[in-house]
């Protein structure tokens, strides 16, 4: 288990007073309970907030506060700042890296009640939404008019735009449309001092430093985002998928190279290895080729004739690589059927093994066969199964490591196996995380990718925004080497327990 810092005993001791102060800022509604409530402090009702998508880690917070406006967020942060109280921002809590994991002495600031769409403008192709609007909620609001918000993480039904901004989330279609950072125009940021700053706006590329770029993907380290201006795109006339099965990972990798070399950039190019194919097929009955070692799902866009042309060219390329089977969807329904297994991949693996760790490294695409081979060896060594889903166009690899949560030894091995995989990603020229963020999960691996002085450089920038290190502590940066202010103050152990 990855260690969390000692709670500040003085803060724990002041819990009731803090809860009362927060209640004064965000009063409960007459409805009582549920989402009407401004502050949650009863232990039982804190339960839903004690973890996120990395559910092996659990820690109830001091309290949860659910503001409904930017002004309330600013008031909460001003109060917490003045009193040296740590805060953990939270959207939907789907982070897979423990980014939204509470701390015992921290106030969780949940943005889910800030869920209004403030503006939609098709002429300027933008929408202004509050941080708690779900990713899919944006697309749902505009798809009737032919528009969409491009980044589409698999969690899009639940995850919120504020969380997407902070994780710089991607999706299956980011090969063509980019990740969150490429689809933003502006945010409203509340600093730890409670100042509200407009970053960017409704125009492209604000002059001056690219604060928007720095804030995107900063995992709640620099401030709290309450409003986001996103770019809207008009949807293509249509899209269609094909499925190609291969005899070996290497061969599938070569086919991917050949497709890119031909100048075609599909909107999606997804790779699944044998264990992933089997898991998904057992779950979704999508008709996946069980005899295959590797499989690609490739999607193109355009009018029917353009789809035919591109799919035809891709088919011709794949046929040079002795595929086991090629299945080109003829209709939208057939496309959906091809995607069905892939979209249900997490659920599918969950069926085989209720507990799994979803890893997220990026590798140079050419190293895929080597990485899969070495991962196979690790899998044997650790005695744990792994299934791989890979965004083949951009090198983002998602190994799903299956373990048994009832067996602490199995979890320990799974974590070690995961760390080894990420180290391997860095070794072959890639990185620790492509889209899920560092969070708690990869915090102590940061030294694999960055030299100590490089981490210090990043920490100094964090300090420029948050000098006392109150924003989402214990995430992203290894605990050793934190500046003095962040550690304030190592409490006597006994005192911590007593509180």
């Amino acid at each position, binding site marked *: 288990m990855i260690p969390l810092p000692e709670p500040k005993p003085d803060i724990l001791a002041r819990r009731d007073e803090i809860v009362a102060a927060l209640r004064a800022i965000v009063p409960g509604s007459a409805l009582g309970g549920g989402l009407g409530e401004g502050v949650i402090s009863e232990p039982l009702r804190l339960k839903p907030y004690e973890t996120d998508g990395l559910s092996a880690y659990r820690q109830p917070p001091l309290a949860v506060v659910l503001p409904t406006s930017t002004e309330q967020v600013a008031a909460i942060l001003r109060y917490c700042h003045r009193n040296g109280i740590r805060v953990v921002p939270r959207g939907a809590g789907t982070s897979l890296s423990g980014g939204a994991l509470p701390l015992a002495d921290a106030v969780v600031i949940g943005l889910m009640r800030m869920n209004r769409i403030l503006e939609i*403008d098709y*002429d*300027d192709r933008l929408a202004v939404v509050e941080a708690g609007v779900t990713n899919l909620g944006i697309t749902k609001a505009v798809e009737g008019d032919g528009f969409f918000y491009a980044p589409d993480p698999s969690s899009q039904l639940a995850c919120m735009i504020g969380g997407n901004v902070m994780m710089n989330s*991607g999706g299956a279609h*980011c090969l063509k449309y*980019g*990740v969150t*950072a490429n689809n933003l125009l502006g945010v409203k940021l509340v*600093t730890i*001092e409670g*100042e509200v*700053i*407009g970053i960017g*706006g409704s*125009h*492209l*590329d*604000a*002059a*001056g*430093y*690219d*604060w*928007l*770029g*720095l804030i995107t*993907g900063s995992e709640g*380290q620099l401030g709290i985002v309450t409003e986001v201006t996103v770019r809207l795109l*008009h949807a*293509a*006339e249509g899209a269609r998928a094909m499925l190609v099965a291969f005899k070996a990972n290497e061969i599938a990798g070569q086919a991917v190279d050949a497709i*890119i*070399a031909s*100048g075609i*950039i599909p909107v999606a190019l997804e790779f699944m290895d044998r264990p992933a194919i089997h898991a998904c097929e057992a779950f979704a009955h999508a008709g996946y080729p069980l005899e295959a070692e590797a499989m690609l799902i490739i999607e193109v866009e355009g009018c029917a004739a*353009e789809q035919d042309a591109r799919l035809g060219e891709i088919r011709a390329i794949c046929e040079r690589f002795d595929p086991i089977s090629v299945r080109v969807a003829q209709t939208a329904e057939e496309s959906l059927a091809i995607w069905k297994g892939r979209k249900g991949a997490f659920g599918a693996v969950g069926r085989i093994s209720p507990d799994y760790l979803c890893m997220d490294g*990026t590798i*140079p*695409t*050419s190293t895929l066969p080597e990485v899969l081979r070495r991962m196979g060896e690790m899998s044997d060594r650790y005695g744990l199964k792994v299934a791989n889903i890979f965004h083949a*166009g*951009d090198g*983002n690899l998602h190994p799903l490591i299956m373990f048994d949560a009832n067996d602490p030894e199995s979890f320990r091995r799974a974590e070690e196996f995961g760390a080894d995989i990420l180290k391997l990603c860095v070794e072959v*020229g*890639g*990185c620790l*995380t*492509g*889209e899920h963020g560092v969070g708690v999960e990869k915090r102590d691996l*940061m030294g694999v*990718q*960055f030299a100590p002085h*490089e*981490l210090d*450089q990043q920490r100094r*920038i*964090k*300090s*420029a*925004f948050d000098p006392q290190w109150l924003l989402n502590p214990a995430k992203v940066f290894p605990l050793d080497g934190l500046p003095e202010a962040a550690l304030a103050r190592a409490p006597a152990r006994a005192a911590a327990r007593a509180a």
Partner: protein
Amino acid sequence: MTDGLLSPATESELAGILRRATAGGEPLAIEGNGTKRALLRPVQAARTLTVRHLTGITLYRPQELILSARAGTPLPEIEAALAEKGQYLIAEPPDTTALFEAEAAETRPATIGGVVACNLSGPRRISAGAMRDHVMGVRLVNGQGEVVHSGGRVLKNVTGLDLCKLLTGSYGTLGVLTEVTLKVLPAPPDSATVAVSVRDLAAGVRVLSAGLGSPFGPSGAALLPGGAPELGLQGPTALLRLEDFSDSVRYRAESLAARLGREGDVTLLEAARSVPLWRAVRDAAPLGALPEEAIWRVSVRPSAAPGVAASLSRAFDAKLLLDWGGGLLWIAGPAEAATHAAVMAAARAAGGTWTLFRGPDGLRASSEVLPPEPAPLAAISARVKAALDPRGVLNPGRMHAGL
């Protein structure tokens, strides 16, 4: 200036220079080949540090869509290497040689480091992103002479704070870039332009919005107030560019033309005429700025552009070129404090931002060439600057006076 020129041959030599500069509190102007020396404010430094001898493509993997080069590598060298594999720089950075001709002491090509440091993006920004969207990795030397890397050589990376984006567009004030890694893409084999003659700028922006809000994915959306007479396009003309495989380009151009036909006369320009036209738009040639005129870039939401244009025309004899669906206004006019004030006021009123892109030293030194940041952000800004360049030796005064 050459006697004060520091031109290290290696990154570590460069780091040593910066360590000494910081130790001695000696400010340095940071350059590649100095082609954009006249952009933003004049730097207050006796000596200049150039990365022009840090050259060469260090990694190019066409199949992985990734290219790394040392910061001083000339842009044409990179473009040639990409073209050989049928690829290109996605952000289509403008060639500013012509714009800065008068100021340039010698003619050397722009370096990739300079293009990244200025976050220069061309027409394709609207569909494919800005320069900063494609910077996947950087190596930089900070003010203290530490070599720091951020990002990497893969296309998706969220490990740690994104210094690639922070450094892109920081004009050499936060660190000296020594190497950049860019995402690149296959260059589409064909292109064409749908040109629509329009009554005025407002009608033109509406046409561009209709094109960008269609399923046909234009990769350029510009508006020439005076048309392009050499192509037979008279008066205000909206341009929508398509880039793709030939069958798609043909189909999409015809579909757009059919859709936009009722807005005005439509002319279809095939690749042979379309490519040079967009190169001209990219380099702001149709702006027709005279050598003595100042040039601004103003970024607003597209629907606000006609209003900005109208208020500028009332204030002075403004020359205009609109790109990015109307959201980017290139403006030329008399290089005077009053015109600069008019540009600032118009940009502000529209909720957008401005850049004084070119102007005489006096105007640049006495102006807010970029919008000042609101106080709480300016405070953060100063702390971030100090986190990277504690003694303020890197390009002092380049973006804002006193910073």
